[in-house]
């Protein structure tokens, strides 16, 4: 006899539950989490170091978690800002999951932190699938990566609340077509704000911090179309499939 057991559970249900718990706990502490996604070498760490330094100079309590497969180099770089910084080593894993943050927050995140920046593993594919309990998700792309990057990685850019272009000082040298980039972003994420930044010239300085502070305690002003889908019918309890949902076929 073959039996069909209806489950109707989201594959990411466990991660999403943990992310929701984290988001609720962080909100209760007055902390806004910001998830930074980009490919390796796009300048996440340089931008984040500048934003942490700026926040410190303005007296805004911020902290950062930075994830890599190996080395603590980024934590050392970010630590120069004077902000509390912690390295997450993923031991080869290509993305962060909500549970991985939990172990790094307990007993470390200082009380009163307004913004917790989470620098995800440099990768535009895998991290896009995982909610970390952030309020603001930011996708970054440097001018050297090509105007069509948002189309090649639609999940990462399509679910972002803010898109930052980095290394804008190199735009002319590499022939970056800003209007084409903006059009591609709008195709997959209509209405999202795109801002040019450069840690060399200071263009766009503070934009990340300001968006993070504006999201503080609120839902993000922008809601991506890709994030607006009614979730499929779901059983919230692991064992709720026993509620008469077992069919027999013989």
């Amino acid at each position, binding site marked *: *006899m*073959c*039996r*069909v*057991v*209806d*489950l*109707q*559970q*989201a*594959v*990411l*249900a*466990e*991660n999403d539950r943990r992310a929701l718990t984290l988001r609720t706990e962080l909100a209760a502490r007055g902390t806004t989490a910001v998830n930074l996604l980009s490919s390796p070498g796009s300048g996440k760490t340089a931008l984040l170091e500048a934003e942490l330094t700026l926040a410190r100079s303005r007296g805004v309590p911020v902290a950062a978690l930075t994830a890599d497969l190996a080395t603590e180099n980024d934590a050392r770089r970010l630590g120069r800002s004077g902000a509390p910084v912690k390295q997450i080593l993923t031991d080869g*894993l*290509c*993305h962060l*999951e909500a549970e991985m943050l939990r172990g790094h927050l307990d007993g470390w995140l200082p009380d009163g932190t307004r913004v917790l920046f989470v620098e995800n593993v440099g990768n535009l*594919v*895998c991290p*896009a*699938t*995982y909610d970390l309990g952030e309020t603001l998700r930011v996708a970054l792309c440097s001018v050297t990566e090509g105007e069509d990057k*948002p*189309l*090649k990685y*639609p*999940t990462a850019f*399509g679910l972002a609340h803010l898109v930052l272009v980095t290394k804008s000082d190199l735009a002319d040298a590499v022939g970056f077509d800003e209007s084409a980039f903006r059009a591609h972003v*709008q*195709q*997959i*994420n*209509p*209405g999202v704000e795109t801002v040019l930044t450069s840690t060399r010239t200071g263009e766009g300085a503070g934009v990340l911090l300001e968006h993070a502070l504006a999201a503080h305690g609120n839902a993000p002003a922008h809601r991506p*179309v*890709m994030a*607006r*889908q009614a979730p*499929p019918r*779901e059983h919230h309890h*692991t*064992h709720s*499939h*026993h509620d008469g949902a*077992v069919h027999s*076929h*013989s």
Partner: protein
Amino acid sequence: MHEMSLAVAVVEQVDGALRDEPPGTVETVRLQVGELAGVVPDALHFSFTLACEGTVLEGAALHIDTVPGRARCTPCGAEWATGMPPRLHCPDCRSTAAALVAGRELQIVSVHRADHGTVPAPTPASEEN
């Protein structure tokens, strides 16, 4: 490749859900994967086989139903296939106020099992597809 993490999550959830069921062999796990879910079905198939090893799902087949991306315009009600990469402007009125109708699914739909102690009946082709 996050498909390995997803495959492990599938195995853990199915294992947990079947814990209080009568013993039996899991023959097929059926998933819905949306075109816009950011998941590569081939990679998920490969990972699933590895993730099942040494679990109650060992030897189980994975059946993936792909769900095409569809969006609906909030102001004018038009509905369209988004394609990949998705086009999320309304093709009729050009509005940007759309919502997805389908395409982000990443869902365990069902599990097909053969009960222990009984001879598995031949499964009709329609059950597998």
